[in-house]
């Protein structure tokens, strides 16, 4: 009974929140600067990402787009010699505050990597790894979680009969969707994607793109891509970065059709990059 009440409450609150905060910023960077050893990789970044939208970050190689993305769930912490100044606000709280819980924030902000990185274990174990980390140990619940998230990532039909087989045996595109399912299994609020289709063939890429458009209904997606067509196809907002600086940020149609800065226009039209 208690659970049921909780469920109703949760749903109501979630519903309200969604209505209420539909156009709110879920994650904001304020005066963000980052150095690797002596080289500055991010210069005074100020940006806000909207809830339930797909935002893409584009720019030439080495412009700091992946670095910026990795700042959003503190994956830069593992890199030695990396120094960060400024604030990243997630639901209004600074991720880099001394009392911030890195692991809880990472649970709430999922990440998909450039190269599919399923763990060298079975498909089922891959999906349930996250929930187990977060103290879900009931076998029935884990079964339900794995089914639900494999369906969310539209890979359930392909793997439902071989959940116990190694995930390393899947194709690249399947591996990437499995990684998305794995990230979803810990119920994040935001999905960060670091060039998720860079190592995939066109058909697998198309499937992932369809999936991203589908995910938008429930999650906020921030995607780094060096494929401008991809950014134009799937994102609501686009941000262009160059040499560690944020050059322009706005609605995708505006960025691609009517860029305000010369640099953006040059890049969009393929004059460099």
């Amino acid at each position: 009974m208690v659970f049921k009440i909780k469920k109703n409450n949760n749903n109501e609150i979630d519903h309200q929140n969604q209505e209420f905060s539909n156009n709110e910023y879920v994650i904001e960077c304020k005066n963000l600067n980052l150095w690797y050893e002596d080289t500055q990789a991010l210069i005074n970044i100020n940006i806000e990402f909207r809830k339930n939208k797909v935002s893409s970050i584009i720019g030439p190689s080495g412009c700091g787009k992946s670095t910026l993305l990795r700042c959003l769930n503190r994956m830069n912490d593992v890199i030695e010699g990396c120094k960060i100044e400024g604030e990243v606000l997630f639901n209004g709280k600074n991720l880099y505050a001394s009392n911030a819980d890195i692991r809880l924030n990472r649970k709430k902000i999922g990440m998909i990597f450039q190269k599919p990185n399923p763990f060298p274990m079975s498909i089922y174990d891959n999906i349930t790894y996250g929930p187990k980390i977060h103290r879900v140990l009931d076998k029935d619940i884990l079964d339900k979680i794995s089914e639900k998230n494999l369906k969310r990532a539209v890979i359930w039909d392909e793997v439902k009969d071989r959940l116990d087989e190694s995930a390393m045996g899947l194709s690249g595109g399947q591996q990437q969707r499995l990684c998305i399912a794995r990230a979803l299994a810990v119920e994040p609020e935001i999905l960060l994607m670091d060039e998720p289709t860079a190592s995939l063939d066109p058909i697998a890429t198309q499937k992932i793109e369809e999936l991203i458009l589908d995910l938008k209904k429930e999650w906020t997606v921030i995607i780094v891509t060096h494929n401008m067509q991809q950014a134009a196809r799937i994102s609501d907002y686009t941000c262009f970065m160059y040499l560690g600086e944020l050059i322009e940020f706005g609605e995708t149609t505006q960025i691609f059709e009517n860029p305000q800065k010369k640099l953006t226009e040059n890049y969009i039209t393929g004059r460099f990059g």
Partner: protein
Amino acid sequence: MSNETVFDNKLYLLHDDFSYLKKNREPYIKWALFGFASIATLFVFLIIIFLISEGAPFFAAVPLQEFFFGTNWLPDSDFYGAFPIFIDSILVTFGALIIAIPLGIFTAIFIAELAPPLLRKILKFTIEILAGIPSIVYGFFGVIVLNVWIKDIFQLHDGRSWLSGSLILAIMALPTIVSVCEDAIREVPDYYREASYAMGATKWQTIRRVVIPAGMSGITAAVVLGIGRAMGETMAMTLVLGNKFRLPDPLTNMLSQVAVITSTIALTWGPTAAGSLPQLGLLALAIVLFFMTLLVNTTSNIILNRVQKKFRGDLAVKKHSKLRNLFVSNSILKKLVKYKQLMATIIISLLIFWIFPDLLSKIIGSGICIGASTLFWGRSKISPKYKRFIDYALGLSFIGWVFSTWIGIFLSVSICLLILVVLTFFRELSTVGQQRFWFGVVYTCSIFAVLMVGIIIFYIVSKGLPVFLEPGFLTGTPKNSGREGGIFPAIIGTLQLTAGSILFALPLGVFAGIYLSEYAKENRITKFIRAGIDNLNGTPSIVFGLFGVVFFIVFIGLTRSILVGSLTLGLMILPTIIRTTEESVKAIPHSFRAGSLALGSSKFQGISKIIIPAAIPGIVTGSVLGMGRSAGETAPILFTAVKSTAQYVSLSIFEPTMALTYNLFRLSNEITGGLERAAGTALTLLLLVLILYSFAFIVRLKYEKKKRW
């Protein structure tokens, strides 16, 4: 997507109670792992501290000058001149390297550059077998085969000699040289080779002019490591050298009986009383040995580190050359560097004049040195005309040095003339012909290496099999001090010691390896720990044995027992396990760690649930290799665990025991008429070790196939 599951999920993963995330155990885990890693380094210092503090009274009683330069080693009459022992050690090692270096380098070239994949695997396995054969089995092979051959060929009373020792050591140093050389050659990037082929070079020209020069520092490290391996070898030397504490007479007589540091300790430690001057003298020898190997290992590690950095374009190499430029730009130093060849020649010649006793050897010896140093220091800078002259001079003086007689000189002159003819002919050959010739040399060396394994295994099996198949040999107890009966207690003793050592070393080693690969930052402390572990790896087994005595028995107060033996052996195999763990953990892609962290796991959760399971094949391989090594070692247990009277199975870990290696040692050394049983024991030991090594090899092979990331 039913609502029911959503509900369940929300309950389980969207609730607000994440208090468990607040408990951050990471710092404790990190410090605990750091502790494990430090223990390994700590032991290096304990070895130094205990050997020196226990051996120090010796230097108070015997002047350093007498110890290092006195020529009589007669502890019973209070003479402690270890000079002959040092010189003998150098000579035996030198003799071994002359054989092992060319053989090893050519075999490595074959394995890395020429062999088809299947043959490569077979050859590598063969070389690994060679590395796995226990030292005492080599010694036994020397006793029953090599010594007999030398006795017959040179018509001696006793085949035990410097020559015999050098030959055995050459075979034993071969696997080290081959494997390190092969790594060095394979480390040379393929685009070097492609660039050479693209200019129309033959395969041999590419190997000779591009691959070998590029891999030169790795090859040098291989040679240095080979020296370390040869210097630290103990048990085989106790059986084949004859153990006479004197200089060869004349100094070039390879048939004379000599003694090296390690064999002196192993053979004469037993009867000495604890703390007596003779025992302290042996400790002093061990200290010298320890520092010699320390020097050799440090050198090779420095070289190997530079090799790795070289191909990765690391900054450190640039730093090094800057440092060098700084020194070399100084004009006086510049001149000195220019004449380094000349200076080295003068210094080495002076040394030789002092060491060699008679005039003839003096002349010949200085000839070698001038030749060798010219070759070594400045070959590329002299004109081709002199190069050829140096080649001949070197060949002439070497052969003259070996024979040291007028006939020898005559022989060497004719051989040199022959070489001259062949070389002249060779220079006329086309590049393809040259390639054919050198490939012939390479093939011959590789075949020779395989042949050695074949000969050793053939003799051990053919001598041992009849005894091995006797009913009751494996299951019976020994009779008549082991001349008859079975070896059951020795088998059990070896298994106990092996199990004990792995129990001690595995947890310590795995945790230390994980610390080094996952937590250690590349700072001074880490470098220090790594250096400690590397040196522990190169420390001779007899030094471990003495450390076991002075630390566990004298200092802690335990008695000679399975426990002490296991600890000593465990310490010896610790570096192997640390290194293999570290390497297999490092081989796991970084993306797995990132994937785990991105789900909100702690660092250690990722390590324990993903990294370690994926690294298990590597860790298993390392531990099995360690077990093989600890089953085959004699020197560390000689004074810590075994007793010749322990001819029963001991069930308590606080009692001494019998072991296969020790049984083989005493049967072929102390017990007359024990050779027959010794052969059976050698075969049993060989089988045990080979089974372990094959198991490790198969695990690795399977793992390599399965690995998909």
